[in-house]
């Protein structure tokens, strides 16, 4: 077989049924091999859309996402998606065609140094020089993408390698390397248990690493057994069972007041699969200032990177959480946290007839089918989704956390729908973000994907405008989007029906109409441009110095 046919063979070997991409000259042999193959290729309308669809596929399913692109501009268009996958630790394998080695390094047509470009935005990248190395390289790429802290791996394959003849050798399975025995952590586990027993005000700070370690049952058992209150990062929303009364919500810049106040007061922060990101900590020197820290992660580079850990463990949360469970006496602290949660709950009695986005999203959350996957973009709507929607799994909330990439949502929702066809895929996007990969409506049309699209439109680049209002003296530089297209007409051009609403009393019937429609649907929601996201921790401030606007936290 050819190298190109071997690529497809190896995809099937790894259980890959769906790939996303866009063809071009240097990857034509692989596309020829895909033709009538068992691997389903989803043609996106931009390589970035293909990359984000692969991410959505991976995040919604827990499987590795695969995307394809040709050399030169095809590969450069993948870069943002790879960076997004790296920052959010998403297992993705990107396969790029490259010019033949006979002309490599000559500035040939559509030649760019993809390996060089990939250095900063992948976990690792390979350039395949010989077809004899192709199978081992692709197998290594899949193993690397999934192992340890997951991430994107790129394999750049010159056209001559794709065309060369090679024999397929089946994979000989070798025993997986065993995880370190718990006894390896005996000293740290004992120290952690001592800290838990000594603490009066412990707090679990939960990141995306927990669900990626498949440790949600162990997490919830740990929280129940210890009685420890908890907060989550953006990426970990949905990790804590909805019935847990001591879950305080998301912490950080737009976190809940209860979460931020309690974290600032804790005397023991138990950091599980999280990385003290600046959007979480605010002013790092003032973050949880009285707390000792237990930090468990799979990535050694995260330990002591930003915050010293009194006890650190590099290992599998699934095994470590049960081992370190130790009950303490936290009754007063539990009461305090419950009081904070009650005092600082959201209020939705917004005056007037116009649509209030937080209320809309609460209604959406309550009316969408169970186990819906909600993808969102980046900006104000993203934070409102995190604040006002509830999820029963982190796989049901796809949000570009680390890179914060506008344009993520629509292709991610496509990938989510393809990975979980039995579940409803909902996109919540803003008018700015939606336009960044709007060409992917053509992908929805082509494959008749019933993605439900909610465009929250304030005719502004809302989050930037909010910061201009607060921190740049109201100088609204380039954030006016009042010349947006008619989104319902735009959807209609892709054979997607839609409806536009602007009053509160239209919301429930509009949501029902969207969910009852059997195919894709776009609901355009006009909101007021003066609505902002609260609370907000200003840059440089400690997390307890939150700015608030609406009197929603006052009795």
């Amino acid at each position: 077989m050819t190298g190109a046919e071997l690529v497809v063979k190896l995809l099937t070997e790894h259980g890959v049924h769906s790939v996303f991409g866009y063809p071009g000259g240097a990857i034509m042999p692989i596309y020829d091999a895909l033709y009538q193959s068992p691997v389903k290729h989803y043609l996106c309308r931009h390589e970035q859309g293909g990359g984000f669809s692969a991410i959505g596929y991976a995040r919604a399913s827990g499987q590795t996402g695969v995307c394809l692109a040709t050399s030169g501009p095809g590969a450069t268009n993948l870069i943002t998606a790879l960076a997004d996958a790296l920052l959010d630790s998403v297992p993705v394998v990107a396969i790029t065609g490259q010019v033949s080695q006979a002309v490599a390094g000559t500035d040939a047509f559509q030649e760019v140094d993809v390996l060089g470009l990939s250095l900063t935005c992948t976990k690792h990248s390979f350039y395949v020089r010989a077809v004899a190395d192709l199978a081992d390289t692709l197998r290594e790429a899949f193993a690397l993408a999934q192992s340890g802290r997951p991430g994107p791996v790129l394999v750049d394959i010159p056209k001559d390698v794709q065309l060369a003849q090679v024999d397929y050798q089946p994979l000989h399975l070798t025993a997986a390397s065993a995880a370190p025995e718990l006894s390896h952590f005996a000293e740290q586990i004992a120290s952690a248990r001592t800290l838990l027993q000594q603490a009066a005000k412990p707090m679990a700070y939960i990141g995306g690493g927990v669900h990626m370690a498949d440790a949600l049952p162990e997490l919830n058992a740990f929280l129940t057994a210890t009685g420890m209150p908890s907060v989550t990062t953006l990426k970990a929303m949905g990790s804590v069972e909805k019935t847990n009364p001591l879950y305080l919500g998301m912490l950080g810049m737009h976190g809940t007041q209860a979460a931020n106040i309690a974290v600032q007061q804790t005397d023991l922060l138990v950091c599980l699969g999280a990385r003290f990101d600046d959007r979480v900590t605010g002013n790092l020197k003032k973050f949880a200032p009285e707390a000792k820290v237990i930090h468990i992660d799979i990535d050694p580079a995260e330990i002591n990177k930003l915050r010293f850990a009194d006890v650190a463990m590099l290992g599998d949360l699934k095994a470590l959480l049960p081992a370190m469970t130790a009950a303490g006496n936290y009754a007063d602290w539990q009461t305090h946290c419950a009081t904070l949660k009650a005092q600082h709950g959201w209020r939705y009695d917004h005056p007037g007839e116009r649509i209030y986005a937080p209320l809309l999203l609460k209604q959406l959350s309550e009316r969408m089918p169970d186990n819906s996957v909600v993808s969102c973009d980046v900006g104000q709507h993203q934070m409102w989704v995190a604040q006002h929607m509830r999820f029963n799994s982190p796989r049901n909330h796809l949000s570009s956390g680390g890179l914060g990439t506008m344009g993520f949502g629509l292709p991610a929702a496509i990938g989510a729908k393809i990975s979980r066809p039995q579940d409803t895929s909902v996109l919540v996007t803003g008018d700015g973000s939606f336009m960044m990969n709007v060409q992917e409506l053509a992908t929805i049309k082509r494959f008749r994907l019933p993605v439900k699209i909610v465009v929250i439109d304030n005719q502004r680049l809302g989050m930037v405008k909010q910061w201009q209002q607060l921190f740049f003296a109201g100088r609204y530089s380039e954030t006016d989007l009042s010349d947006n297209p008619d989104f319902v007409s735009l959807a209609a051009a892709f054979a997607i029906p839609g409806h536009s609403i602007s009053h509160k009393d239209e919301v429930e019937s509009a949501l029902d109409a969207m969910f009852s429609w059997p195919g894709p649907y776009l609901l355009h929601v006009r909101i007021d441009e003066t609505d902002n996201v609260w609370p907000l921790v200003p840059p440089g401030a400690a997390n307890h110095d939150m700015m608030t606007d609406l009197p929603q936290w006052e009795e």
Partner: protein
Amino acid sequence: MSHPHTLSTQHTLTIQTRHEAVAVERLLQVTRYRGFTLAGLELKPLADVSGLLITLSVVSDKPISLLVNQLNKLYDVLNLELHQAEAGALRA
């Protein structure tokens, strides 16, 4: 404008990598991105030409563990040894 004098330390690392030019690129990219200043670089093939032996000297006021942990994550790095630091040797 006066610049504050920050006590910096020079560290030397001996690193064995796969025999790929890109391995050197990765080392330098991580060194730069993580905020360490290059103070010296020597490299030669291992005796069996299976990889490169690289001596990397860096200066920073940051803990060297921040760089070592990141370099150790690189797929191309097969072995890394940190040698005794020359504490306070340089002032940035």
